[in-house]
């Protein structure tokens, strides 16, 4: 029996996902030993954020066939919302250091970001995607892509117009001493932001796998006519999917406000990193997107460490291009063009 398991494991290792996961883990361990554990911490925090943004992107692409170019702007909306919610809270905390808001204030801001993202998503569907879908679905992928390009420019410049171009950041969410994990001191904010993204990704996965609505979303992504036949209200699912996808990006923006202050183009980096992830992991599979998120995060962190800051534009793009050349369906891409499955 164990022999059988061994051979199964071995064949898995030889597949593209197996190989890349093992190599990534090895690289992560080696780099951590060499450069210090902060590298691992950075990777985990960035990876958690990317997992959120990338699952949202996957959702849009898989269910609605919209290649989102504006996804980073929902990240920006999240960080902006969190900023405007948390700034008064932190002033209040300064005056009342014993208030319950010390612990729960940040959660209010982050949940606010989530809700803000969801609302922005609903508005986008009502004003932009819905009208396009009702008018025509010819050449849908390209047209909707161009539409999201417009949305992206619009949101970036509305931010600049209304809130200005300066950095709107906070010192930190949770005060107090850093937490010690195996002799490494990690700030509370980092730990919390990772935990938040882990919990949300896990909840999202369970939602998609086991609930009636989650299954309906997957059904729409696999066969939209089939979904309609069995009585799934497509309009509702579309609206839900967009708001979910945008909320995921926004919550990432909100929980990382302490690292990435909000400014008009803050979403650009999460956007293209999330696209790296989506392409790396092939279309639409949640677990693949999560694994891919951590790989891209590792790639970024390692590039920053060993090649230098700023090269994180170059090295990951080069690597992704290589992957695209040899495996256009991505590392985790399945042959069946189905979306959002294990």
């Amino acid at each position, binding site marked *: 029996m164990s022999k059988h398991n061994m051979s199964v494991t071995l064949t898995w290792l030889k597949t593209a996902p197996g190989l890349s996961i093992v190599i990534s883990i090895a690289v992560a361990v080696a780099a951590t030993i060499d450069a210090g554990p902060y590298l691992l911490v950075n990777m985990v925090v960035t990876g958690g954020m990317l997992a959120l943004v990338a699952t949202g992107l996957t959702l849009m692409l898989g269910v609605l066939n919209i290649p989102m170019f504006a996804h980073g702007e929902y990240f920006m909306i999240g960080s902006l919302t969190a900023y405007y919610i948390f700034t008064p809270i932190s002033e209040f905390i300064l005056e009342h250091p014993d208030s319950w808001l010390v612990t729960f204030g940040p959660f209010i801001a982050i949940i606010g970001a989530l809700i803000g993202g969801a609302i922005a998503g609903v508005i986008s569907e009502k004003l932009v995607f819905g009208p396009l879908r009702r008018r025509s679905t010819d050449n849908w992928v390209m047209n909707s892509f161009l539409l999201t390009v417009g949305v992206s420019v619009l949101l970036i410049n509305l931010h600049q117009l209304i809130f200005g171009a300066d950095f709107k950041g906070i010192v930190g969410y949770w005060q107090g001493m850093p937490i010690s994990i195996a002799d490494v001191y990690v700030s509370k904010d980092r730990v919390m932001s990772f935990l938040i993204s882990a919990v949300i990704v896990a909840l999202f996965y369970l939602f998609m796998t086991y609930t009636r609505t989650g299954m309906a979303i997957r059904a729409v992504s696999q066969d939209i*006519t*089939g979904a309609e036949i069995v009585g799934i209200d497509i309009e509702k699912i579309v609206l839900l999917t967009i708001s979910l996808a945008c909320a995921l990006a926004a919550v990432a923006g909100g929980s990382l406000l302490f690292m990435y202050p909000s400014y008009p183009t803050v979403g650009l980096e999460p956007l293209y990193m999330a696209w790296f992830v989506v392409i790396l992991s092939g279309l639409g599979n949640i677990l693949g997107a999560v694994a891919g998120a951590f790989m891209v995060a590792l790639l970024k962190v390692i590039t920053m460490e060993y090649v230098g800051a700023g090269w994180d534009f170059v090295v990951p793009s080069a690597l992704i291009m290589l992957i695209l050349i040899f495996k256009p369906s991505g590392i985790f891409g399945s042959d*069946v063009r189905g979306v959002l499955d294990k």
Partner: protein
Amino acid sequence: MLLEVKNLNAGYGYLQILRDVSLHIDKGEYVGIVGPNGAGKSTTMKTIAGLISPMSGSVVFNGEDITGLSGSAVAKKGISFVSEEMNLFVNMTVQENLYMGAYTIKEKHLQNERLEFVFELFPRLAERRKQLAGTMSGGERKMLAIGRGMMSNPSLMLVDEPSFGLAPQLTTSVFASLEVLIKTGVTILLVEQNVTKTLAVTGRGYVLENGKIGLEGKSADLAEDSYVKKVFLGV
């Protein structure tokens, strides 16, 4: 009258396919539509199922006007459509596909009852309940599509070409399962290439040609009709 279709005109975009199609089905009836390829049989089914909105005409189901409702709204009224293309969820297991078929049923125990029923009818599906629909054979998929159509406990089933691409043996078992459904009180509108078979099993039939109803009547009479014999049976 369970379903009444009156002067239905429908098509794709500006292209009109159906011209003044009228038909009616009583509760518990087993009705067939036959006709050559491209006659508009599938288009008729899709229009009734709400996947195409008609240009004019009306569809009344159970005394209620359902013209122009969306596919999901029609499904909720109790009409289930087994399409020619099957439209299965290829990346879900057989069991998940079946549960999706019962999407309009909220109570879990009712869903499970339906699942038992379908599994009894198609033991093959029960054996393969964990398999992904996309990896099933053509015949198995057809069964799954029909099984999924039954899951919502519909009062009317629209079945488009259930035997297409099936071996004779499987065809027989598919027809047998439809027969079982009729016995449980379900009404069926059947579209089939196999004219002899269709006219043998159904009670009443329509002949559709170039988007128009040419003939209608008792299936037994249609089978004896000289025109039908000449055109479809090559006799």
